[in-house]
């Protein structure tokens, strides 16, 4: 880490820690993708993770909900530490039920939406609440309709994913995550697979979530979102946190030379 690491953003001083990540390391073969990443997200934090492709930001996000298993490090969600153990020389989750439960508390939004193609939009949204959380179906449908209204695709409830535009599919995927009432939302480049004219509608939904106080970790290349919506920006470089701070400060004069060069490529 470089001396530019600055942590306090000042906006969420009293918030409880929703997500705590300690010293995550991950290698694919001999290539070390994450070289010891630590991060705390407090209630209502909106953290943008920036970095060139290959800097490890998506892998980092996927390690948090164990879609990738970190080789080393600790992850706690809302104060609960995910139990890991060594098996056959590898770091693996010790308790599958705990992993399932933690995943159900972390909303994940993928780059390519990953909706279940054989289910309607409404079915996609109620699937988790009904079958994972075992909540009454009628209640879940009523909530799902409110969520679909909120993301602006209520009229598409009985359509199938393939019949929607990319922007609509991503908004449906956000509604699907929200239906689980997550403690933290993880966004993995949510607008990177979209046509430019569809990016705005997804960013608007994300912005309104941020304003409602949702704790969010967003891997993104949308500089305007990082600058205007998030209260903290983390810039990753070669598997490490290069710069970390409030957007005003980083985009102002606080960023490292690498960060300046990175945003220079975006015309920022």
């Amino acid at each position, binding site marked *: 880490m470089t001396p530019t690491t600055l942590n306090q953003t000042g906006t969420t001083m009293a918030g409880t820690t929703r997500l705590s990540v300690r010293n995550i390391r991950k290698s694919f073969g001999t290539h070390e993708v994450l070289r010891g990443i630590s991060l705390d997200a407090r209630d209502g934090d909106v953290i943008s993770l920036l970095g060139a492709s290959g800097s490890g930001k998506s892998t980092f996000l996927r390690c948090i909900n164990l*879609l990738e298993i970190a080789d080393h490090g600790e992850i706690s969600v809302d104060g609960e530490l995910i139990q890991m153990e060594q098996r056959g020389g590898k770091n693996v989750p010790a308790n599958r039920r705990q992993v399932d439960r933690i995943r159900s508390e972390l909303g994940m939004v993928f780059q390519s939406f*990953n909706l279940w193609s054989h289910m309607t939009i409404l079915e996609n949204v109620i699937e988790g609440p009904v079958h994972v959380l075992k909540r009454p179906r009628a209640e879940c449908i009523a909530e799902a309709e409110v969520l679909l209204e909120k993301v602006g695709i209520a*009229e598409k409830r009985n359509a*199938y994913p393939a019949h929607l535009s990319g922007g609509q599919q991503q908004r449906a995927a956000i509604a699907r*995550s929200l239906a689980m009432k997550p403690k933290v939302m993880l966004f993995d480049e949510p607008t990177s697979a979209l046509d430019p004219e569809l990016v705005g509608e997804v960013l608007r939904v994300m912005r309104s979530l941020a304003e409602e106080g949702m704790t969010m970790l967003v891997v993104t290349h949308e500089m305007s979102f990082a600058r205007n919506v998030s209260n903290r920006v983390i810039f990753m470089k070669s598997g490490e946190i290069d710069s970390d701070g409030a957007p005003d400060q980083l985009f102002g004069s606080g960023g490292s030379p690498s960060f300046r060069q990175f945003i220079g490529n975006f015309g920022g």
Partner: protein
Amino acid sequence: MDITFMFETMKTLLAALPMTLALFSLSVFFGGLLALVIVWMRVSGNTIARNFAKGYIFVFRGSPLLIQMFLIFYGLGQFGFIRYSFLWPALREPFVCAVLSLALCTAGYTAEIFRFGLRAIPAKEIEAARSVGMSGFLLTRRILAPIAFRHALPAYSTEVVMMVKSTALASLVTVWEVTGVAQRLISQTYRTMEVFLCAAAIYLILNFLILQAMALLEYKLTPHRRAAPLFPVPQR
């Protein structure tokens, strides 16, 4: 062409149709169940289970069904421990042997068809299911099986139709289904053409109905693969 004879032949053959249907439905049912077990072993992480399933599929897919049927019908009785076991009253029945060999054979094919269905599931949809907290049986029941079944359905329809035709082999172990009765009629009348034409017509109509039903099932299960409706879907 002797219409009266054809009519009488048809009546005699149709009397044997329930036997053909019984062979078919029992073997598809038990073969399907067994296929689920085999495919579960085939894709499991357990080396012994996986290799057993591979061996099973190799044997039952790689050898002629007729030989399998003969081995079960004529062969099993040579073993004292089977002949004197509680299973023998069932295993000496030609019908039981025929269903058993048909089911064992179709299980091998069906397991492979289901496995291809599983392989066709988009990894991203599995990842999405894991990310909401699904795993194990819930993941299989809600996401893997429904998607795999939809992918497997066209190939599975073909296997089901093959099974209808394979029931004809049961005539060679003295089960009086449509083909067996047809051969008996021929040996009595020497009118090969008429009798076999009638038998073929019965199989054709039966398979036509089965394929229509399978196509309808596929249509009902895959609205997402069709173009979006031009008018908004009516709200429930």
